[in-house]
């Protein structure tokens, strides 16, 4: 069955030419498994890839020129990470994306000068320290505490950080953690949070693995009496919620590249061919339904990109896209299991791995329920508080 659904509408000739450059760049990275990190050794390859991208200026495509960026449309970033996802080579790094853009908006000139050059060149990797055992969807419940030191050998001008983050992706190979922590009263919710940048090799930081069903690894990151200079706080004290919210907003167009789905479907269709299932009308009908939904998600991704390019609020289109895309990735993955052929169970075959991986997608990066709630509240003003 041919794969005929298209996303390549609506991009300019220059943007399409850039896609061509990306595709030829990617020929040097086939086999790198940095999208799923099925092997822990992938981290080293991904680090190298990010440096190669950095040297080309591709980690700062849409950064303003005054920060050393290329000043291009976010469409370029979309194309880059969409093709990376199709090739399963890598996901967009947090550092030059979310962290750098938040620094440009909320950081001091000194912080920008200190972090941006290495981020642009792909030399520094960040992970995101938001979630905790008791703060996931309810992020304002974060408890990891940063206590300002009044006196002592290091203070004032320092914090001492204590607490634990969990489910932290990539903490085992990143250099820094972008840490959301409590600086206000215990019950201050979103009004008492601050963002700190903490090097992961600081004394008192411990990273330990949390193995997941896809054979991958998330991490627990513990902080015990970790000293952090106040100069590494991004934004004002207790203004961390705003920093985090705006950081989220600028990266939505690359968070869930829709071509991943096209690739998932391609792999599934190829598998039904290999197993001889593709002659069954029930199977074909299911596949065509999935192909329609891939087109739907691609359309939602482009709608979202349009909002980001125009600078309009994008939370609702981003939630539409994330909801539809992550549910679809699961439905594609499930189809092989549901066709009732035990070949689909053989560990680490394409379709088998997809099943174990896809179940993570409707939780990570904001759950489906959080997305649904956001649409109901922000698009329609439905709120329990009236």
């Amino acid at each position, binding site marked *: 069955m041919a794969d005929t659904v298209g996303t390549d509408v609506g991009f300019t000739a220059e943007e399409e030419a850039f896609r061509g450059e990306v595709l030829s760049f990617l020929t040097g990275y086939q086999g790198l498994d940095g999208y799923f990190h099925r092997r822990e050794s992938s981290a080293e390859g991904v680090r190298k890839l990010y440096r190669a991208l950095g040297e080309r200026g591709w980690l700062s495509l849409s950064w303003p020129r005054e920060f050393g960026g290329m000043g291009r449309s976010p469409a370029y970033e979309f194309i880059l990470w969409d093709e990376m996802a199709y090739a399963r080579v890598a996901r967009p790094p947090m550092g030059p994306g979310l962290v750098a853009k938040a620094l440009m908006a909320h950081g001091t000139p000194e912080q920008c000068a200190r972090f941006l050059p290495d981020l642009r060149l792909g030399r520094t990797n960040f992970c995101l320290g938001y979630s905790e055992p008791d703060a996931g969807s309810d992020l304002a419940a974060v408890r990891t505490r940063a206590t300002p030191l009044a006196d002592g050998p290091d203070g004032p001008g320092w914090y001492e950080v204590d607490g634990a983050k969990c489910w932290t992706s990539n903490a085992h190979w990143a250099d820094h953690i972008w840490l959301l922590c409590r600086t206000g009263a215990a019950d201050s919710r979103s009004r008492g949070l601050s963002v700190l940048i903490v090097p992961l090799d600081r004394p008192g930081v411990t990273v330990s693995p949390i193995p997941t*069903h896809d054979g991958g690894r998330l991490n627990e990151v513990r902080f015990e009496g970790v000293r952090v200079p106040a100069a590494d706080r991004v934004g004002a004290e207790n203004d961390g919620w705003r920093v985090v919210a705006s950081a989220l907003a600028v990266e939505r167009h690359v968070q869930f590249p829709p071509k991943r789905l096209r690739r998932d479907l391609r792999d599934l269709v190829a598998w039904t061919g290999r197993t001889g299932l593709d002659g069954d009308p*029930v199977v074909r009908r299911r596949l065509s339904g999935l192909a329609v939904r891939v087109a739907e998600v691609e359309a939602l991704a482009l709608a979202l990109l349009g909002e980001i390019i125009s600078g309009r609020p994008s939370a609702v289109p981003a939630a539409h896209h994330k909801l539809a895309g992550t549910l679809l990735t699961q439905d594609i993955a499930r189809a092989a299991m549901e066709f009732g052929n035990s070949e689909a169970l053989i560990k680490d075959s394409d379709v088998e791995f997809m099943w*174990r991986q896809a179940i993570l997608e409707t939780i990570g990066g904001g759950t489906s*329920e959080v997305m649904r709630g956001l649409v109901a509240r922000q698009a329609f003003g439905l709120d329990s508080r009236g």
Partner: protein
Amino acid sequence: MDFERSDTQRALLDALDTLLGRYAGTGRSREPAARGAYDHALESELRTAGFLDLFGDDGAGPLEATLAVERISAALGAVTPVPHLLVLPALGLPAHTGPVALAAPPAGEEPGPVRYGAEAGLILLAGADRCVAAPLDPGQAEPVPSAYGFPLARVAPVASGQGAELPPGTAATVRGWWRVGASAEALGMMRQAFDLTVRYAKDRTVFGRALGSFQALQHRLAELSVLLEGARWLVYEAAFLGAPAEASAVAAAHTTAALRRLTRETHQIMGAVGLTREHDLHLWTLRLQALRAELGGMRAHRRAASAARWGAAAA
């Protein structure tokens, strides 16, 4: 069919639970599962206590045997309860020691990977009409890596003339009891995953209240419980009726649909913690995926149901 559990049934299941408390359970399952091993000690205990003879027992019968399969599976017993408790006795075959493989490949094809295929000494191969009971040489099996709790292997091809060809109609007996049995296994596992999730919804606090107090989740748990109850009664009914083609296919089709929804919802409601290997949820949800691949899965169950009701042409 009596809807109330009889005293005999209750006493029987209590005894079984006690046995399983010692020879099955989450702790024990992680260990043989990690090695991909069959639990011979559990099988032997079940045999000694008479649980493998329930099917033909005067004081019990196929329904009790099905209830026992459900319990063994809920407790993650690493044995093959469906052939031992249901299929072998339904065929009137003698008991067998060690794992038994079941297969019903499409005409002319070899079976795909089967549970415990690398250790099984006997296979029951359902053809179009007859079933063949053939010895297997475990040394000839080809294990395949499995991420779904049960060890899997391709068994050596059964040459024609090998093994005993059973009378006409026995293939339908195998399919019927296999459908009932695999559905009963699924019931046991689904119930455990569901209970775990309900407990979590009660215990976890988000936004200052119990997770389960959010209506969006309450409705989904309620819908799951409807699916589970429906599956339970369809499976018991099919067992009670002797696993006729239509009832067993309907039970399996509904159970497979319930399983799909249950897997999605339990993992969703548990959030990140349910996606980790330290948490128990996956001990059931991953095994459930292996069950739904059996017998041709949902497509085949639905086809079998419509063929039984409206004739082969309708399928």
